[in-house]
């Protein structure tokens, strides 16, 4: 996907090669755009990820950045989070999954999420046996209703 380098100036000859070069570079853009977008410009891939939270430990656990995710409570090696479903409900209580890792890149595990109305809560356990984490990133993915 390259930018066209042609220049069209009034009064100068117009060889077919310059037109063809412009058509070719425009086609590259069209091919590139079509890989991940449909004809109306919408993304082809469905977006399953819908909530994210970055938690940091500085004496106590706190939410550093979050989108539809908040911290309810925390202990030394666990955090309890709430996930907001107010814009779209889950297809079923089981169609939500979390992916969580510490700032050491080690995987976390979590309890089965509890769905109550438009809020999901769960407890995430941080691995502390190897080294104490000072950060945790949590991503929620799921199948939600088309509302």
């Amino acid at each position: 996907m390259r930018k066209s380098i042609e220049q069209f100036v009034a009064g100068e000859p117009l060889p077919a090669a310059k037109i063809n070069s412009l058509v070719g570079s425009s086609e590259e853009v069209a091919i590139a755009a079509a890989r991940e977008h449909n004809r109306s410009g919408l993304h082809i891939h469905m977006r399953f990820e819908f909530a994210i939270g970055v938690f940091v430990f500085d004496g106590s656990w706190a939410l550093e950045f979050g989108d539809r995710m908040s911290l309810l409570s925390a202990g030394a090696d666990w955090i309890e989070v709430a996930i907001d479903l107010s814009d779209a409900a889950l297809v079923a209580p089981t169609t939500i999954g979390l992916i969580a890792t510490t700032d050491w890149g080690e995987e976390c595990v979590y309890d089965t999420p509890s769905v109550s109305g438009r809020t999901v809560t769960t407890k995430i356990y941080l691995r502390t046996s190897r080294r104490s984490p000072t950060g945790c990133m949590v991503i929620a993915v799921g199948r939600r209703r088309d509302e």
Partner: protein
Amino acid sequence: MKPLWHRLYQSGIGDVVPAELLQHAVQTQHAAVDLLRGDHEIDWQGFPVHRGLRWMRAVAKLEIVTRSVHEVETRVLFSYGFAEAPKIEVSGSKIPWSGIPAGVPLRGWWLTWRLEEIGPQAVALGFETNGPVFPRNLLVFDAGLAIPGSDNRNKDRDGRGIAFLDWFDWREVGEDLVDELSAFMLALKAITIAVR
């Protein structure tokens, strides 16, 4: 994301095409390239793909229904982007897809999958468990690599991936070692997988 400006011209047969028209076409092409680069990054083929974690090539969640040292039955709760949905395989003598002898350290549960879109994979896994029990040595492999560390792809295996979830515990029975499910295997309830 900035807007993509373009202008429509009207003309008749035999009219002179103004250079300005063609130059605007060039500028529109430049704007389209900038637009695509704005929230995309260029992948290994030179094509723009969405930047960041929010757009995934494949996502699935599978629940473990029954478990043993011989077979694991799973149920797919949702799956997208997989030509073959993820499943758990028990490695007896060989690592799935590779043909490599598993040996004692790698005898256990493997998660295997096949993507609809081939190409290099970045994989993240999430584990729903019954309490704070962790996998002891999680390993994830892009099975599409011709050989480990190479940029070359094996066209027969491209799109396939495998992850070693955990190894079996062992118990001595007479002179034999008998496989047993590990604490993580017993606690594991569901797996979420996301592939970029």
